[in-house]
């Protein structure tokens, strides 16, 4: 691997990741539909993954991509479990409204 300059300034990559992260967070905060929440979560995870890959490229080592693969694994695991719960919820409530789940409070 010959050393080469990074394509763009690191700051720009970071800024993109931060924006993606915040958009994802905004989605989690505002959407009542569970599926949309899950998608927003994927956005947040992707933002983190992007920083890892970016950093890996900056330092030229493989750790960043290894972490990316781990994030991929996590995303798969979480989505699988979350969808299982979504199906269960829908089976009982015929709705995906997360705000209807406030049986416990105080």
């Amino acid at each position, binding site marked *: *691997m010959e050393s080469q300059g990074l394509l763009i300034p690191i700051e720009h990559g970071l800024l993109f990741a931060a924006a993606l992260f915040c958009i994802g967070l905004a989605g989690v905060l505002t959407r009542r539909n569970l599926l949309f929440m899950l998608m927003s979560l994927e956005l947040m995870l992707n933002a983190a993954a992007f920083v890892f*890959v970016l950093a890996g*490229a900056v330092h030229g080592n493989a750790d960043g991509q290894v972490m990316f693969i781990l994030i991929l694994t996590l995303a798969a695991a979480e989505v699988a479990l979350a969808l299982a719960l979504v199906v269960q919820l829908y089976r009982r409530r015929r709705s995906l409204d997360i705000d209807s789940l406030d049986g416990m409070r105080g």
Partner: protein
Amino acid sequence: MPFLFYLCALIALLAAWQVIRGVNAMHALLYLIVVLLAIALMFFMLGAPFAAALEVIIYAGAIMVLMVFVIMMLNQGDSAVGQERAWRAGRIWRGPALLCAVLLAQLGYLLLPAVVSADAAAVDAVAVGRALYGPYLLLVELASMLLLAALVGAWHLTRVLKHRPGEEV
């Protein structure tokens, strides 16, 4: 090349915006896939072809298909779209948006003057493979355990037993 990178970033952000503002779950999911593809392209341009491939194959390919499958299965229909529109509107939106904007501003302030000694280099699939099956061997094993946990959990949670109380399971 830098121009392509910025274009991808712009597409990703816009598509992400559509994901969180959309009303139809299926459309939103397609936008999410656009985000993932754009990010994959950016990975490629950052010199991480392996990550780019995985992003397309596994993320956009496998995980998203799972979501498509569930959305289709639940089949919420047009009434759901109307409901989404109603939920999306109004005051609900402002507070969280403000919060996220503040967070973004803070992150921008914190991250922007990044002082990093960069010796950028492309990291290809061989290097990643070496790392994975060299020092991080245990990590691969543990990742399999993580998937196993999700598998067992999801299997258990979606299993429907027809037994009624009193019968031996």
